Structures are given as C-alpha cells and as structure tokens.
C-alpha cells in the first residue's frame, strides 16, 4: 500500500532523530545544548509570529461566518448567540467554545449506508480523544514550568499534585501523561487503520503524532524507568531561562533524546500543520460576527468592475419596453 509508506517513513524519521540524539549525547553534547535550545525556541517564536503576521497581512475582504444556529433577526425569535454570534461577545464565546471545548468537533457524526439508506450516528470519539490529547498536552507543558521557575510557582505545584493525585508508583504517575499517550494512540491508530483517513494522510500527519509521542515516551521513561538527576535538569533549564546556559551534568541518553525531540517539535511547529494552534484564532468562518446586513464590512481592495448600466440596458430594450407599456427614462 502506498499510504503505508508514509507510516514507515515517519517511524524511520523518529528513529533517526533518536539515534542522532543518542550520538550527540555521547559526543559530549554540552556545546550543542548551549545553542540548540535557543535556536529551537527562536525558530518557534519567530516562526510563529511570522506565520501569524503572514496570515494577518492578507485581508478578510468579506464577512463569511459559517452560521450554525438561528441568526438574530426579529426580536421575538430566539437566536443562538454562540453558534451564530450577533455581537463581539457571542463571537468571543464561540471562539472560546471552539478553542477550549472543540465545539465543532463535538457535532461530529458518522455516516454509513445501512439497508440502502444513509444513517448518521453519533461519533464523539474523535472529539473526546482530541480534547483529551490537547488538554493533557497543555497540562504537561504547564507542569514543566517547575523546571523554569524558581521558586516553583504554587499553581504549578498544585497542578502537579492534582495530576499525580492517584498514587501510582514512586514518583507518582501523572495522569496527564497517561491520557496524553492514550489520546495519541487513538489519533495514530485512527489514522493508520481507518481506510479513508489513511488515504488522506501525509507523512507529516504521522510524523507529528509520532514526534509528540516520542517526547511523551522519553519523558515517561525518564520519570519512571531511567530516573535522572532532577536537580541537574532544573539547573540546566534555569540556565537557559537566565541566559547562562550550563551543560547538563551526567545527562543521560534519554534526556538528550527527550530534549532533541522537544527542540525539533517546537522548531518545526510553526512551519507545519501544528500551526493550527495559531490558525484557529484567525479562522474567518468562526471568529466573525454575523452582522453582515446591519453593519457594512469594508473590503480594502474593493476593485472597481465593469457593470451593465441601466442606461445601456434601456438603450438596448427601450422599444420593447415601450411596446410593453413599461416606463422608460428617455422617450
């Protein structure tokens, strides 16, 4: 199968990165790890800003919200301010629901033909696991602030405590790690197994999932199977944050792999489909207010066009109009 090649390739790519990281770790990485984090983070930030500015530079010539509920019209008709926002509050609410709750994906259904007719079943798994994956990722990222703040922010400590509420093992298994991997597993399997989704999947689709999975897996391995000296890790992280980078002391191979995957992930993010992180905020069908008829929207490049004027029209049809008894401008 042609589409399986992409899966294979992405596995190979991940493996290659892991090996490279291992090699870099052996070959006395310190120098490397003084530049790499800044390079990756710089690419991430600059790339992200660049992409957003690039989108922003293109105007939104027309107001094209996709309306998914009753619009605001006559006062006695109950409108749906969230799915069909009539004002900025509604639009903000709609975006918030989209970003935090994956509102549109919540609508998802599954179509199949049964007994010669299409039926539409509820299909919330993608929504559920998608939300679980993204939410877990957010928690994981926030938790890592413990390596970047000194003293550790109380909120971060609280979040970690909540996340490790179930005392599974020592150190306690973070639930977000488990749910993150579960979400990733669902998304990957879905992509690799469902024929339709596999058909549309590109190399980058698998690679993105596997890269994040690699980050999560190396992180989990470090926490539970190949412990590292957290003091040294934090010293390294704080070194970066204070622009006084120090090489990780006694860094393990897994740590190098973890870092390498993270650097590649954040450096690649702005230039990949993962940029949907920023893009969702800009989507005109979602972030616009449906007030087209009550407030004029301006198109900055409203190019003049050639039209067929009434004069030209009457000139052509004047006789016929007169014959039909229709009024004309010019007798």
């Amino acid at each position, binding site marked *: 199968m042609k589409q399986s090649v992409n899966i294979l390739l992405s596995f190979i790519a991940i493996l290659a990165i892991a090996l490279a990281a291992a090699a870099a770790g052996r070959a006395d990485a310190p120098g490397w790890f003084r530049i790499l984090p800044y390079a990756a983070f710089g690419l991430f930030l600059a790339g992200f800003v660049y992409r957003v500015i690039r989108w922003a530079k293109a105007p939104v010539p027309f107001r094209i919200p996709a309306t998914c509920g009753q619009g605001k019209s006559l006062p006695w008709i109950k409108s749906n301010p969230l799915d069909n926002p009539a004002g900025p509050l509604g639009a903000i609410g709609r975006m918030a629901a989209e970003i935090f709750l994956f509102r549109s994906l919540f609508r998802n259904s599954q179509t199949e033909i049964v007994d010669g007719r299409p039926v539409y079943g509820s299909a919330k798994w993608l929504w559920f696991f998608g939300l679980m994956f993204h939410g877990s990722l957010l928690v994981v990222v926030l938790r890592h602030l413990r390596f970047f703040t000194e003293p550790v922010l109380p909120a971060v400590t609280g979040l970690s405590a909540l996340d490790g509420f179930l005392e599974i093992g020592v150190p306690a298994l973070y639930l977000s790690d488990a749910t993150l991997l579960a979400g990733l597993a669902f998304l990957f399997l879905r992509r690799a197994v469902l024929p339709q989704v596999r058909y549309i999947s590109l190399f980058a689709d698998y690679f993105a999932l596997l890269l994040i999975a690699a980050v999560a897996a190396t992180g989990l391995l470090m926490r539970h199977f190949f412990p590292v000296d957290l003091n040294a890790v934090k010293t390294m992280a704080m070194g970066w944050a204070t622009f006084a980078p120090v090489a990780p002391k006694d860094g393990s191979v897994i740590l190098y792999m973890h870092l390498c995957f993270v650097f590649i992930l954040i450096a690649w993010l702005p230039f990949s489909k993962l940029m949907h992180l920023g893009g969702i905020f800009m989507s005109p069908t979602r972030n616009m207010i449906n007030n087209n008829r009550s407030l004029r929207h301006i198109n900055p490049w409203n190019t003049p066009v050639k039209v067929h004027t009434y004069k030209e029209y009457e000139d052509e049809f004047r006789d016929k*109009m007169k014959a039909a008894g*229709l009024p004309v401008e010019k007798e």
Partner: protein
Amino acid sequence: MSLAKIPKPEELMKIGYKPPATAWMKTPVDFRPGTWSYAAAAKNLAALDMPNPRAWQPSDSDWKLPENWRQIILDGMKERLEKYRSFRLFMDICVRCGACADKCHFYIGSGDPKNMPVLRAELIRSVYRRYFTKAGMCFGTLAGARDLTVDVLKEWFYYFYQCTECRRCSVFCPYGIDQAEITMIGRELLNLIGCSINWVLEPAANCFRTGNHLGIQPGGIKDMLEFLADDIEDRTGVRVDVPINQKGADILFVTPSGDYFADPGTYTCMGYMMLFHEIGLNYTFSTYASEGGNFGLFTSHEMVKRLNAKIYAEAKRLGVKWILGGECGHMWRVIHQYMDTMNGPADFLEEPVSPITGTRFENARSTKMVHIVEFTADLIKNGKLKLDPSRNDHIRLTFHDSCNPARAMGLFEEPRYIIQKSCNHFYEMAEDTIREKTFCCGGGAGLGNDENMEMRMRGGMPRAMAVRDVVRKHGVNRLGCICAIDRVTLPPLMDYWVPGVTVMGVHELLANALVMKGEKERTTDLRGDSI
C-alpha cells in the same frame, strides 16, 4: 432526458467507500459521462469579457489552454493568497482529521475519496505547497506537494465543479475551514484560463445583459407576471396589480427569475403577489434588476460584484425606500455576505421598516434588504394576515433548509413559523439533515444541469433519503423550501429517489392559506388541485 442514461436508484445506491489502491496523487481523473458539466460556450465567455473563449469539452484530451497557463494560475494563486486570508489560512492549517469527509453529500453519494472536502482541498493545497512553501519546494511528495500539470488542472476542474459550495463541511471542521471558499478560489483560477462550465456562464452572461438568467426581455417579464395575475384571479377571484419599474414605489422587490418563469417557482411568485396585494404594499418589480440570483458566485468574486451591482443601482434609480428579496438561496448568500461590501454603502435608501406593522428590521440596517420570510413572519406575528391552514390539509409537508440561508445567515425559525401558521401537517426530517446540518439538493453552485444528472442524483441522495424517511413515517407528499435552485433541482431528485413528492416554496403554502379580502370561495390551491 439524461434520466434514462443514469443507473436505477438501486444501482446508484451501491456505493463503495473503500478508497482505491493507488495513492490519490497517482489516481487520474475519469471524465465519466453523467458526472460533469459541459464547458462554457465561447460566446458566453466573450459576452463577459473572459479569457480564452474557444470550443472545447472537458472530455477532450486537449483543452486548448493558453501557452502560459501554468504561470497564469500560479500568479492568480499568489494574488489570491494575498487578497484572501481565508484562502491562505485554509491552505495552511488543515490537520487532515477527516471530520469533514462523510459530511459531504457528494462523498456520501459517490464514495469518491476526492469528494471528501479535505481531499478536494488537498488538490489545490498540494500545488500551494509545491510553489509557495519551502517544505514543498524542498521535499516534494514527502511534504504533500506536487507539480501543477494538465492532469492536476483537469482534476481541479472535475472536482471544483463537483462541489456545490454548500458549506456543510465547514460546520463540522474544528478550524472552520470552508470548502466553499476553496472551491470559489479554485473556480476563479480555472476561469483565468477560460475553463468554466456553460451552465454557470450562460445564465451569468444573460443576467449581465438582460438582467436575468433566462435572458427574458422586459416585455416577456411583464407578460409572465400578468399571466400569473390571471391565474390568481382564476383561483381566488381577486385581481392583483403587477407594478413593474414603478418610480416612487416604497419597496423594490427582487426575486430569482426562476420564480416567474418556471414551475413550481411560479406558484411561489403568485404567493408573493397575493400577499403584497392583500396587505396593500406599495412595491415594484424591476426588469433591469429582474434577477435575485447571482451566478457570479459560481464564477469569481469579480463576477459577483458585476452582476450584483444592478440591485442597488435600480433601487437608487427608482427611488424606493428599501429592498425586499424573494425566496432564494445563493442570492441571499450574496446579499447577506457580499452586496453591501461590494456595492454599498446603500446610503440612498432608508433603514427598512415594515409599512404594515411598523417593525424596524434592525438586522438589515445597513444593507437595507429584507428577506421575504422575515417580512412575512413579522406580518403573521402581528396579526396582519388572516390564514386558514386547513386549506393546506391535502399537503403533508416537510421542509428543506437551503444551504445558503442556513449556513450563511442562520435563517431557520422564520420559514418554520410561516409554515406552522399556514398548514396543519408539518413534519421535520431527521435532525442530522436539517438546519445547519441540512443537505444540499445536489445541484447548487451551477451544477443543476442535465448532463451532470448522475452526480446530481448522487449528491442529492442524502437529502432525498431523508425525505423518503418522512414519507414512509408520516406520509409526506410535499417538500417545502425557500430557494429557487431547489425548486428547479429538487423535483427531478424527488422523481428519481422518492416519486410522488412535489416541491413548493413557502409563500405558495402561505398563499394557499391566505384569506383575501373579497375572494371567492376557494376550491383549489394555486396549482389548481382541489382542496
């Protein structure tokens, strides 16, 4: 005519959703008869000053493209990437989750993976990546990029003219990616090298010259409207006026030409005329702006603007206070989302106020154009109409939300309110097929032609099956809608999938129930069927 050529419904229903063994980039397009529309005639291209007028058909191997066609397209893409944030964004942020896949009526009806909105967009995205992103330039296929070849161009033509721009996919997309936007840009690009379909360009050319799609000249319009007035008198005993091009009228009424020239739209038009007469509205038709529809929407943004300009121009010339629009789908997408931006501001008009009820239509404050169902719902709510719903007792109705009023306006309750007040037997279709999740008739966006009939029947299948369900469950015999294209495309769809169901506009239903001053006792509905 082509109904005979297309397979029987049972045959058509055998849809395989298994994707082909070859990767989509390596699966060439097959111009199978019945699934594509004829190319635009040279005369129509010329009439609209469009490039590369010539005689050709998509099934030809040589499309007689201009020498530098690739450059034209790429330049056009670049220009549009800079002009439309939607286009650039939608090229960039799709994650190919596939949530849109089985939401497209053409995919459900055909099983062709390139009819999944995501893949339809990938057709153009792959070219975007190849020429406009570093990754695509460097890594090619691995980055999902591919060269723009004639085969790719043919694929574009086939699949962008196999999308009705209904926006159903956009409802389900987690990023709101709107395939209609991508299709519109895709069609614009194709138009740059003269690749369009005749069923779009002929109405557009007609509209540009005569003011309406059918190319009807002023006298013809008057005759037809008078004829409808005769019919009204015959059914009701009331003679209604037919004001045309009247200066000094309060309101300009614009409706698709299909409403006064083709059944069953004509009954809807009779409905408008009866309603306006009954409430004593001071309004006028126009022969110059005799078309509400706008096939420019299926051509290019520029063409939208060219064809739409007549409405405001005519309103200004006639000196009306505001504009009332009839039942139409894409007409309302243009009026709601484009008209004011393109051809406004309409500062020569007044903010719309119903002369009958005094209601101020706040939501049309700037555009100054009110949808007739908003107008009528307001009349009913204020008790200005006397309705006898039992006159519609022979009708068991279900209602089809047209894509554009649904997903570009959110016009759901107004038509239902009118329906509910005008008849006693109203049944909704399955909830996944109505309101914002409504299915296309299969023939929108200029695809409602006969040569494309198989694809229309496939694309319309989800809608038709939902109708069939309520036919079986509730004995429904009539399909209501508020769209002129629906009134043209749904009857053959119903004949094919659900024989026995006929199609009507909401104002036909209203007019059946409307008790008019001085009317005789009604024995038939507007169609002459006894009640």
